[in-house]
């Protein structure tokens, strides 16, 4: 694949191994600016590792990862990571508002500007009246909303999401999917979305990339030509949606065999 300069995330022949065991081998992948790319694949295919490399938490053994044109050597503030385990990623001794504040404190936002920003961000994720609650007093969906608000406080150009809705119940998940899509449409952020839910991948993505395991490499790269804004009922009933779902399902079945 060609590595163009206007891509948001570029994996350029990236390899990684832990203790001699290859995790990712010769991965090349471009994610365009403003694109929503969903990554699927059986466990052990390195999808979370790829995300962590794009976040600068892990450095590749070989090859380079470039974000917004610059080689990545450490995490950047304009690249926000939404972890799956929201319960562990939030500070339990801080309220919802104070958790969001952490990102502003890190960025050096003046103290006087923080309350207003925090209010706006929490309202954006639907937590307007829950500012003073502690994470442990909130449901899983609400906790994940806090984490998303904290990531949005970073003003991210790139959002890396690691199975963010995987632990939530179906109704909450669908609600958050739509909220995420509308927030991303508003900010124009690039999204790198790891999931094990094939329907979620098709529903959210502009592209779905399937990885093969042992070692991780690209097995399938599907363009998703479904109209936006997407609709939980209509989109999921479209023949194209069903066709893509089928293709991915077959891919996973073969990949796991």
């Amino acid at each position, binding site marked *: 694949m060609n590595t163009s300069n206007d891509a948001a995330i570029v994996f350029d022949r990236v390899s990684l191994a832990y203790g001699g065991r290859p995790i990712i081998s010769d991965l090349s992948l471009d994610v365009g600016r403003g694109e929503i790319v969903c990554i699927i694949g059986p466990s052990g295919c390195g999808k979370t590792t790829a995300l962590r490399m794009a976040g600068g938490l892990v450095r590749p053994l070989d090859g380079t990862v470039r974000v917004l044109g610059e080689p990545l050597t450490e995490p950047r503030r304009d690249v926000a990571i939404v972890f799956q385990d929201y319960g*562990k990623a939030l500070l*339990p001794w801080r309220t919802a508002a104070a958790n969001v504040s952490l990102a502003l404190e890190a*960025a050096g936002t003046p103290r006087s500007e923080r309350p207003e920003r925090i209010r706006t961000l929490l309202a954006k994720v639907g937590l307007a009246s829950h500012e003073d609650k502690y994470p442990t007093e909130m449901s899983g969906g609400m906790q994940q909303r806090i984490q998303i608000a904290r990531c949005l406080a970073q003003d991210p150009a790139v959002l890396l999401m690691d199975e963010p809705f995987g632990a939530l119940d179906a109704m909450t998940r669908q609600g958050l999917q739509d909220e995420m899509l509308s927030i991303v449409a508003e900010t124009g952020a690039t999204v790198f979305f790891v999931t094990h839910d094939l329907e979620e991948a098709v529903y959210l993505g502009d592209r779905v990339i399937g990885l093969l395991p042992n070692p991780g490499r690209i097995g399938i790269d599907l363009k998703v030509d479904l109209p936006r804004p997407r609709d939980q009922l209509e989109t999921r009933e479209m023949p194209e949606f069903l066709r893509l779902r089928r293709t991915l399902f077959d891919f996973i079945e073969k990949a796991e065999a």
Partner: protein
Amino acid sequence: MKRSWWKGLVVPAALIVAAEIAMRLSNTTSMSLAAPSDILAALLRALFDGSMLVATRDTLASAGAGLLLGGLLGLLLGMIFGLIPIVNRLMEVTVEAIRPIPSVAVLPIAMLVFGFGYSMEIAIVAFSCLWPVMILTRAAMAGIEPRLIEVARALRLSTTQRIAKIVLPAALPRIMVAVRLAAAIALVVAVTVEIAANPLGLGYGILVAQQGLQPDLMLAYLVWIGVVGWSLNATLAFAEKRLFGRAAQVEAAGA
């Protein structure tokens, strides 16, 4: 619970009454025993003439200063050892060689260096408080949720921000346990040093009463040291609950 709070007091009360009766009936003049009523009288006398309060102040000041010094040093070292594995491995043998030395064994050296008085006692108390705080802090560092460290990295928090906003609050409940433990040790060591060598405080008071053949005063000091120790622990427990109620609660829920 509320209905039977007094049940625990039945046995001590009975023992005190029995001791009183036994002492009165046998009518002995002992050099090591005294009737509870005499002990209480001696305690009140010593409290009202101020001697016991001065002794209490001296002991608590030394124990407190030692605890502060040793605790802060232990906190600092525990954080360094806990957060930088290479330093921990480098220092492991050194720490394990120095740590088991009984604190009272450094008394002769401390006496040579500091002479008699507060600084010698403070140094020994600090030496004994350093280790438990250091070891528990080091363990608390290892117990911090790794995801939070990743969040700190992703947000690019500076080292000071990382310690102030993530590491210390996350480790606080365990550090508080270390402080309570060290506070108990501080009192024990302070009194021991006073009995063994240092002419001040409650330990010296108990020694003087013993050598002056005043068993009632000696035992009054003993009772008073118990009261002081109990109050110290109760105060710390209360402070912990008030100051870190949220963090402690979280710790309990997460455990």
